[in-house]
């Protein structure tokens, strides 16, 4: 399914932060989790993830570490910081506001119920 690129861009940061809040991880695993969560609908260009992660690191939302796990190759692992968790909360607040507004107008008495849309 085609998703508007602005929507993809806007949701990228909260998605990555939330995934890292679950557990620390590395780039490829984060990407796989995104695909999992979106049921395969969100197909990010792999390379785009890394500038985003670097930006989050520069802002102090995540820290990184090069590590070699027992069964794999030497990788860069990312872990969320307290600042990152605070930023994630802020993103959540904003998204809840937006999704609530959209849900209201789509389900309301004079609202449009899109065919095949979210019930």
């Amino acid at each position: 399914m085609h998703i508007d690129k602005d929507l993809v861009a806007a949701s990228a940061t909260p998605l990555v932060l939330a995934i890292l809040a679950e557990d620390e991880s590395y780039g490829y695993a984060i990407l796989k989790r995104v695909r999992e969560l979106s049921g395969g609908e969100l197909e990010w260009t792999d390379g785009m993830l890394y500038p985003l992660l670097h930006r989050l690191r520069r802002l102090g939302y995540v820290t990184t570490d090069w590590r070699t796990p027992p069964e794999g190759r030497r990788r860069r692992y990312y872990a969320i910081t307290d600042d990152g968790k605070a930023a994630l909360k802020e993103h959540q607040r904003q998204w809840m506001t937006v999704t609530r507004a959209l849900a209201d107008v789509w389900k309301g008495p004079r609202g449009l119920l899109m065919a095949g849309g979210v019930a």
Partner: protein
Amino acid sequence: MDAVESQIAEWRTYVAKAPAVDGRDLDELEVHLRDQIAELIAAGLAADEAFLIAVKRMGDVDTLSREFAREHSDRLWKQLVLTGEDEPERASNGWLQALFFAVAAAVTMQVARLVAGFPEEEAQWFFRNFSFFVLPFLAGYFGHRRQITTRGWVLTLAPFALLALAVNLYPYGSGSATEILVMAHLPILLWFAIAYPYMGGTFDSHERRMDFVRFSGEWGIYYVLIALGGGVLMGLTALILEPIQPDLGERVIEWVIPSGAAGAVIVAAWLVESKQHVVENMAPVLTMLFTPLFAVMLTVAAVTYAFSGITGEFDRGLLSVFDALMVVVLGLVLYALSAREPSQPAGLMDRVQLLAVASALVLDLMVLGSMVARIGEFGFTPNRVAALGLNVVLLVNLTVTAWRSFRFLRGRIAFHPVERWQTSYLPIFALWAVTVVVVLPPLFAFE
């Protein structure tokens, strides 16, 4: 499997050409590619099919490189500029447009000099306005080079026009201190005005503000080098022409130096823009050299002051000396910052720098303290207010810098807030310069 290995190596070399991707990023991307290939092979694809799909999913190199460049713009300073859909194609050289603006500045300066009759006659207005004969052309050069919009041009030239009016319409008394202060602060204020076209018609981006700081440092170094070379040239010219006719050399110097100095402003700017792609920045190297030396000097001075106290004659110039000192320390901090890889962990240099800043702060506070105690004796004059104001502005900057650096060294915060503080504070310097040029003279009744 060997075929895939060599293909991965080829891919890696290809991506390595992207200007803003460094070695560690490449490692990261390569591991990602290998993980992807491994998964696809496990799903049943052939090795080279897996490679093709993995590379396609990685994204095309130009877009990748642009995204990396946006994030790591500081790396572009030593690398080739990339062209993309949002950056206008820059002439690789652009020396013709630089020459045009340089000649324009030189001619304007010469005409003004002839009208003023310098150096035979005293012309205050010439000295007061000399930055207006040169800096608008520098602004024009950058406006043209960055291809700013019409609105951008208006906003670029407006400050020059307004300040020209303010500086010339104010009724200064003869030999007034405020006029001299204005003459000293005006070039600095106009330099901030140049930041607007340099940054491409915007003030917001912190990355670009840092770029402007880098540009200013390199420009200063190149201008000094050109001035030295020009000095040698003029000296030899005068000596060579001496036998022909006694003061021919002097006349030549009279004509060439003002125009040369004016044109050199643009030429130096063009040099910085051209070499940005190829040569390491010099300012951070000088900073790295002098920071330890200043740290030692300042620590020793601070300890000495603390033990012996500030006795002796209250020198009027003392505050200006400390202003100069704080400016130098700030310069060291700023240029060390401009070259620092943001992801680098705290190191010895950072500690040495913190020592220098802390010692400078201690010294300054001691001097300020003793000065405030005696302010009643001497009262407020324009010079004193200007010096005091600058001192306070610098003091605030360096205090917060020291605090944030300290927290960074303790591992409490990332490096980003330290850098952010400096770029956020830059407008305050501009504001202070505006205050001295526009507000101070009427406040002191132009005396």
